[in-house]
């Protein structure tokens, strides 16, 4: 699996906030998704009801996941495909390698797939002499740059147009050096023509799956570029990688999820290509793959069932939560240190790789609640992050000073009269100390806070006191 860099979150975040190029890219990208989503949602009055239905479909599926997986597998096999059940990342990597070797594959084209990132498919294939070629535009440049995605649907979220031009000039050495990129379209056109030959030459095509459909044994991919379709149509072998929670029962269930997905993700009403693959090419077909493999991956998901984190398995990877997250917007995706960034990553990553290495992630949230409010399947992300903080505390993974402070706070919180007295004294003292200034630029014992921002000065009264006074006035009136 991809190495976990999450223990370095604080250092990564600090570095990210000082990175002018990254900050420029985040600034450019931030507004685009938010505005487009808002318009798409406003244009579909039923959106809220569709969210509830989406949540219910996923809950129903998870409650009966064994049944639906077995039904799915039987239907894949009826259509001439093969299902490979893989408990671990190692098993999935070996399975993919074996399939590639069985047809003597030299090059493999790939559609964008986060589960492929999670499993580390590319490194494994390369290590064994098979060349993987990423064909999604964003993934393609990251492969050239030897970087990982910083966003789950827009992998090159952290790059600016200048980066693209520089990398293409540096690495596409078969093209004239003095060519001009007048506009973004020129960059897209160069990638298109460079990749076209790779599509045609590939022996195997590997895609992910946005959904698996039990009723028909189909895998579904959703793309705008058409790269995923070329990947799964041209080579003689199509491998679909999918984690087990991608399941939905019927085509009708999938239709409801699809109405949510594109709107939540890119703010489109529907993505350009939504494609259902079912088995191998039929005898009379003129194109399509001769082999169809579905690699079904657990890699930690079943451990989430029956826990408070089961709800996370509803996730359809739309990225709305990270698009709307103030923390993601400030530090970008790489700071999170593993495959899945943003709020969904802060819940999923600890589940898959352990809270001991990832405790900083669920703490990197202001709990503003925006992620939950835009989630198409209503995952209570702040609540789940809070559960991770509790687990972290219970397992004594929280740093000692934080534990001590929490213990002191808990002592007072359990004694309301004492708590009120202490807060009244503290706030009164700070009020006096402020001497009419609205904020403190520095304060003893609060250096960690005031290093980055001012501490607002209290108004002189606790909330409880102000509230009691208002109640008294109301009664008096």
């Amino acid at each position: 699996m991809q190495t976990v860099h999450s223990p370095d979150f604080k250092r990564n975040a600090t570095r990210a906030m000082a990175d002018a190029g990254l900050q420029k890219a985040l600034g450019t990208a931030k507004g685009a998704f938010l505005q487009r989503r808002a318009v798409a949602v406003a244009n579909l009055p039923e959106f809220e009801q569709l969210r509830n239905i989406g949540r219910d479909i996923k809950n129903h599926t998870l409650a009966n996941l064994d049944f639906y997986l077995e039904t799915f597998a039987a239907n894949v096999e009826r259509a001439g495909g093969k299902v490979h059940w893989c408990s671990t990342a190692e098993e999935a990597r070996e399975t993919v390698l074996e399939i590639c070797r069985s047809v003597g594959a030299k090059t493999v084209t790939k559609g964008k797939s986060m589960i492929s990132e999670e499993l580390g498919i590319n490194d494994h294939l390369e290590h064994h002499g098979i060349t993987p070629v990423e064909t999604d535009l964003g993934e393609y440049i990251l492969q050239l740059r030897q970087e990982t995605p910083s966003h789950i649907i827009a992998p090159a979220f952290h790059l600016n147009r200048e980066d693209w031009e520089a990398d293409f000039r540096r690495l596409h050495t078969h093209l004239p050096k003095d060519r001009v990129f007048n506009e973004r379209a020129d960059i897209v056109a160069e990638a298109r023509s460079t990749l076209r030959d790779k599509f045609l030459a590939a022996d195997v095509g590997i895609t992910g799956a946005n959904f698996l459909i039990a009723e028909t044994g189909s895998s579904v991919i959703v793309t705008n570029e058409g790269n995923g379709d070329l990947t799964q149509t041209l080579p003689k072998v199509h491998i679909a990688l999918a984690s087990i929670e991608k399941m939905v029962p019927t085509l009708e269930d999938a239709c409801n999820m699809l109405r949510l997905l594109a709107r939540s993700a890119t703010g489109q009403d529907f993505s350009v290509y939504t494609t259902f693959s079912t088995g191998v090419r039929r005898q009379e077909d003129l194109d399509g793959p001769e082999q169809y493999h579905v690699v079904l991956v657990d890699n930690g998901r079943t451990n989430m069932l029956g826990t408070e984190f089961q709800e996370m398995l509803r996730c359809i990877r739309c990225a709305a939560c990270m698009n709307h997250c103030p923390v993601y917007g400030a530090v970008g995706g790489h700071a999170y240190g593993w495959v899945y960034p943003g709020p969904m990553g802060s819940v999923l990553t600890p589940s898959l790789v352990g809270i001991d290495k990832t405790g900083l992630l669920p703490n990197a949230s202001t709990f503003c609640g925006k992620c939950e409010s835009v989630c198409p399947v209503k995952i209570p992300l702040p609540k789940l992050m809070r559960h991770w903080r509790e687990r972290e505390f219970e397992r004594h993974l929280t740093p000692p000073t934080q534990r001590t402070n929490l213990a002191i706070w808990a002592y007072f919180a359990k004694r309301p009269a004492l708590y009120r007295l202490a807060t009244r004294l503290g706030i009164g003292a700070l009020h006096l100390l402020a001497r009419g200034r609205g904020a403190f630029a520095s304060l003893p014992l609060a250096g960690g806070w005031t290093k980055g921002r001012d501490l607002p000065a209290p108004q002189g009264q606790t909330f409880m006191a102000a509230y009691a006074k208002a109640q008294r006035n109301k009664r008096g009136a």
Partner: protein
Amino acid sequence: MSKEAILNGIRRGLKRGPLPADQQAMLAGRLASHPRHLQPQRAQLPRAEQVALFLRNVEKEFGTVERVAGPEAVPGAVADYLAAQNLAPKFVLAPNPELWAMPWNERPMLEFRSGRAEAGDLVSVQHGFVGVAETGTLMLPAAAHRPTTLNLLPDTEIVVLKASRVVAGYEDAFDRLRAENADALTGGFMPRNVMFVTGPSRSADIEQTLELGAHGPRRLHIVLIDDDPSALPAG
């Protein structure tokens, strides 16, 4: 091995054994009846308005459209479209009997062949199965007479669709497929590949700004045959 491990893992998590027979029968019943969920109102319209919504949505997604009175007008519309785009009058025509019954030879300049698309093909003329009004989406199920490569390899894809084949939502499109397509391999109705196509290929991977013409066709043009009197535009 791993199949059992995963299924047992699921059951352990859900704190139960394999589902009892009656529960399995209930789930099988749900699969067999595949109930619909909420259908958006936006496409629940009288025929003429529904077809108009379909075409409006195609254009909103950067596709182009032309309406013709009957199948005999399609070759002319295709030839004129290619000329207007400064494209050579040369294309791959889907081996579909409806398309091949059209009077292509009345336009002597047209050069075309039947089959799937190959690397050098610049234009395809494809047979549209169904149009979905809700989002201006074409449903293009793979078949011997509707090769998938025609939707992917050429720079320009022209899709010929009958107005009587425009439906409200994706579920209506699947209902047509369920009713009309018999798949010999599975005994079901799904072919190897069912593509829903909404406008030409694009990417927003560079600075989240939309650029048309990524890996699929740069242009998507729909020639709509007005074969449905109730779907004609008013006036």
